[in-house]
């Protein structure tokens, strides 16, 4: 029901198009040559990995992309040549040098067929997360119901075995923004489980936020994926401390005394933590993610076309950087977080 307006408008347009006729036409625009594509996301003190491939003309029937393994990729740090990257196959090139925060990284890639492309970015600095406060709010209570089939009575039995409490775990993440510099961020939340069998499992959590930093453009009935990459900037808190609000839904259960909890419903971990990661990201990565998000939400005929951001000169793709800033919060075992 949530998407019904979109649904019926699309039916309306489809109705118009049904009465229309289609004709294949020649493309008479300026045909652009295939371009070299560079993709790389840098992090401080991590290996630089660059992916090179070739773009396809939009009417090309081939839907797979040709990887480029025979290019010469060079790394410049603060405009000084550091090294030539090594091809690892599959279009991947790696450097030995580990970038540091504050460094300006430039990558060039040369190829006999596609010429030379280049891109540069700044490795963003760490920021301080001074605190991460939590609070819990109950949102809904529903009965826990078990269904089973009674063969003797030949009917399905419905049995209430307890109560399910749905709650929101609210976070106030206090970040210290640096003044006089446009900062870009990306919020991520992970769930880390310390398993009884010794494993350590980290999964990405989806979270809600009504924080102003994510903008007010929320078409809640249509754009369910609004700001799916959770990027924001410091427009409203430049140089100040800011408490970012995030919220994660979780469940708790209260079983009836006579209900015996089956083993498969018991937790197989002995500790769980929420990891809140406020990444400092480069402007290029911010713009790239914003445009990727816009492209993800694109609705044919109803949306403006999207130009995916690129900072690769003479080619396309993205060179961005991200610097992780994490805070960990231990949560009770009784919280079932999905």
């Amino acid at each position: 029901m949530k998407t019904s307006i979109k649904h019926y408008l699309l039916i309306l347009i489809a109705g118009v198009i049904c009465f229309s006729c289609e004709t294949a036409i020649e493309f008479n625009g300026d045909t652009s040559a295939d371009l070299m594509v560079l993709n790389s996301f840098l992090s401080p003190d991590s290996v630089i990995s660059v992916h090179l491939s070739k773009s396809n003309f939009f009417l090309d029937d081939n839907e797979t992309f040709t990887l480029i393994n025979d290019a010469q990729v060079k790394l410049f740090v603060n405009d000084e040549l550091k090294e030539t990257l090594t091809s690892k196959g599959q279009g991947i090139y790696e450097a030995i040098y580990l970038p540091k925060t504050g460094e300006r990284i430039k990558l060039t890639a040369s190829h006999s067929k596609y010429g030379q492309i280049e891109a540069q970015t700044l490795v963003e600095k760490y920021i301080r997360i001074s605190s991460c406060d939590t609070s819990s709010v109950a949102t809904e209570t529903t009965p826990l119901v078990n269904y089973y089939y009674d063969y003797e009575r030949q009917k399905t039995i419905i049995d209430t075995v307890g109560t399910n409490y749905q709650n929101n775990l609210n976070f106030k993440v206090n970040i210290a923004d640096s003044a006089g510099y446009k900062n870009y961020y990306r919020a991520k939340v992970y769930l880390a489980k310390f398993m009884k069998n010794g494993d350590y499992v980290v999964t990405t959590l989806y979270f809600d936020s009504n924080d102003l930093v994510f903008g007010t453009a929320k078409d809640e009935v249509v754009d369910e994926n609004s700001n799916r990459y959770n990027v924001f900037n410091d427009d409203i808190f430049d140089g100040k401390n800011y408490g970012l609000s995030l919220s994660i839904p979780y469940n708790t259960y209260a079983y009836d005394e006579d209900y015996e909890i089956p083993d498969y419903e018991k937790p197989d971990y002995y500790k769980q933590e929420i990891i809140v990661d406020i990444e400092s990201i480069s402007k290029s990565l911010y713009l790239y993610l914003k445009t990727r998000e816009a492209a993800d939400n694109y609705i044919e005929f109803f949306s403006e076309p999207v130009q995916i951001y690129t900072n690769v000169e003479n080619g396309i793709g993205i060179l961005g950087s991200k610097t992780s800033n994490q805070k960990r919060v231990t949560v009770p075992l009784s919280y079932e977080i999905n």
Partner: protein
Amino acid sequence: MKKSLILFAFTIILTNLLAQNHTISGYIKDGKNNETLINCSVFDGINRLGTVSNNYGFYSITLPKGVVDLSFSYVGYGPINKRFTLTRDTIININMQESLELQEVTVVANHRDMGVKGTQMSAIDVPVTLIKSVPALFGETDVLKALQLLPGVQAGTEGSSGFYVRGGGPDENLFLLDGVPIYNVNHMGGFFSVFNADALKNVTLYKGDFPARFGGRLSSVVDLQMKDGNPYKLHGNFSIGLISSKINLEGPLLSSKTTFNLSARRTYYDLLMQPFIKIYSKQEGLGNNSAGYYFYDVNAKITHTFSDRDKLFVSAYMGDDVIYANMIQDEYESTNSSYESRLKMNWNWGNLITAIRWNHLINNKLFMNTTGTFTRYRFDMGIGVTEHETNIDPPSKTSTNSTVKYNSGITDFGLKTDFDYSLTPNQDVKFGVNLSNHTFRPGVQVVKINTVSDNITENNDTTLGNANIHANELALYIEDNITLNSIFKINAGLHYSAFWVQGKAYQSLEPRASIRAMISSNLSAKAGYAVMSQNVHLLSNSNISLPTDLWVPVTKRISPMKSHQISAGLFYNFKNFIDFSVEGYYKTMKNLIEYKDGASFMDSGTGWEDKVSLGEGKSYGVEFLAQKNLGKTTGWVGYTLAKSDRLFNKPGNELNNGKEFPAKYDRRHDLSIVLSHKFSKKIDVAGTWIYSTGNCGSLALQNYYAPAIDGYNSYNESISHLSQRNNYRLPDYHRLDLSVNFHKQKKHGTRTWNLSVYNAYNQKNPFLVYVKTTYDSQFDPTSNTYTTKSKKELTKVTIFTIIPSISYSYHF
């Protein structure tokens, strides 16, 4: 310099005031049906001074005492001359008679105020007779589509009544129906306009060089006047067409002092479809189903003449588009369970406008018009799904009622007073004040879900959307039409507007000026300058008009749009036979809004400020028009050479990486040829041929590999590279429309059969272009496998191929 100008103006005024002058005034009407004639020329051949009648047919001319030789002329009507000695203020009401020699004439831009002798440029008067003669889609006469054939006006997509004037956007046009703004001018997604030509008397389009009395939009003003009604006898006509039927009645109401004019039309495709839907539903065992779409509109006007000094008009327009459905979506039945899902849908959108107007002649020099207005556009949508599910084991019964209601719109109340003052023989002054109160309803959605499951009831009731936004607007204007001498004539004016919204006031002072220089008796040069501002925006994503399109006001963050336009042109009349004009313009615009990449406004205005960017635009071009007004063959050829660009490069507002890009409806060439020929009283034919450069579109020309986004994998490994906004031009557009009318005089009136062909040579013009991928699977017996090959083709979608139509009408 400034002092000299003031002294000069003062001297002219004083000289005129001190002379012994008298005023001649009155109303100019059509002698046959008593309709007032707008912009009718009044010219004194002795003093070489003239004026034109205003929107209510009133004229006032002040002349020196002595002999005057007044001529009243209006193309298509025989001229009337009055030669007499002027000794005191005089009232002369004129009843113009259609000329037997000229009655076959169709006319465009005929009026003296806009022709060679007037100061007004970039404006065209389009008689309704001409609009009716233009061949139309499905034979449905359309005012806006007729205006699209004029130079400087561009249509939107194929078949739509989209209106783009001199590089402006679709929301930059002010449509005034009897002086009341009308917001949604489209029926059926823009394929038809809301204006019923049967109800109209006069249509004037201003493309630039706006008189100071108009304000509120950047690009054009379309001023439509409804007919008052015949005071002598009941007249009317009805017509039956392929998609709609219309009726128009006019006549006296109780006495000749009170007249009425009533027009109504309704499409009936939905009524014709109902029996087929019922038969189909019965055959398929689907129960009672009904669905359909229709639109209707009603225009009504009552005019009461108290005296020559006082007249009262009450006019109204109401029109709606309606989509309805009541049908089974899904159902099944088994031994253990049954399920039925039924959809109910009701969408209504349309305008309601009313106006009450009082014309009062304060004295023979000062005419006052006071109007109270109400205009409302609303879109009310309701969709409901009812589901019933019954299960025998385990026994359960669930009923769910889900409804989504969406309401949006805009409501205005207004009060305005306009004055026409004939100050001196050389000066006519217009001034007035306009107050408006706007209420914007930017989209409220109410979602209700009611579930009854085994006697347990659960209700969810969610309301989303913004609160109403209220705004107040004040406009003041003064314009002065000054005849300096036989060569130079000036129209200078000032328009002031103030707009209060969300605790913020936006003010705008807009100078307007135009000058005419007579080079010879039939050749003049004109130039004009106009500043315009606009306080409302229309949020719309698609290329066709949708009911979800939303009017929103400027806000604290979004400032009013503003334009500056300069224009200049030459106007030549060849032996009262053909008029030629060439006009050039250059327009700059700022605070334009464009939607950000990926922005969509399909059903909500929530947070719209975050979805738009503010930028600048410029457009410039040259328009040529040659029109033949007299004779059995009439028509015009119009050509426009134009360019329109946008630049959004302010930090945070960058579009197209901050580089200039073509506007959505930038078109280099636009040519239209409109011809009609009257063979006899029984047969006339008309044809139009249109050629234009294709519309702009955005087409990504490269696809490339995109890495997954860590943590939130988008699953898209291919993204499209769009090098520039509006980087692709659709194929050129051209079309020929033809129509023939067969008239026959009957006992009580005239019947007309109209045969028309839209797109006569079946040109497949593009409505949109997209990349179509087809897959072909072939079985390989050697490997015993299927191989699938894909093929991509650039595909154009054409909506309207050749469409013949027929209609019958009877005029009595």
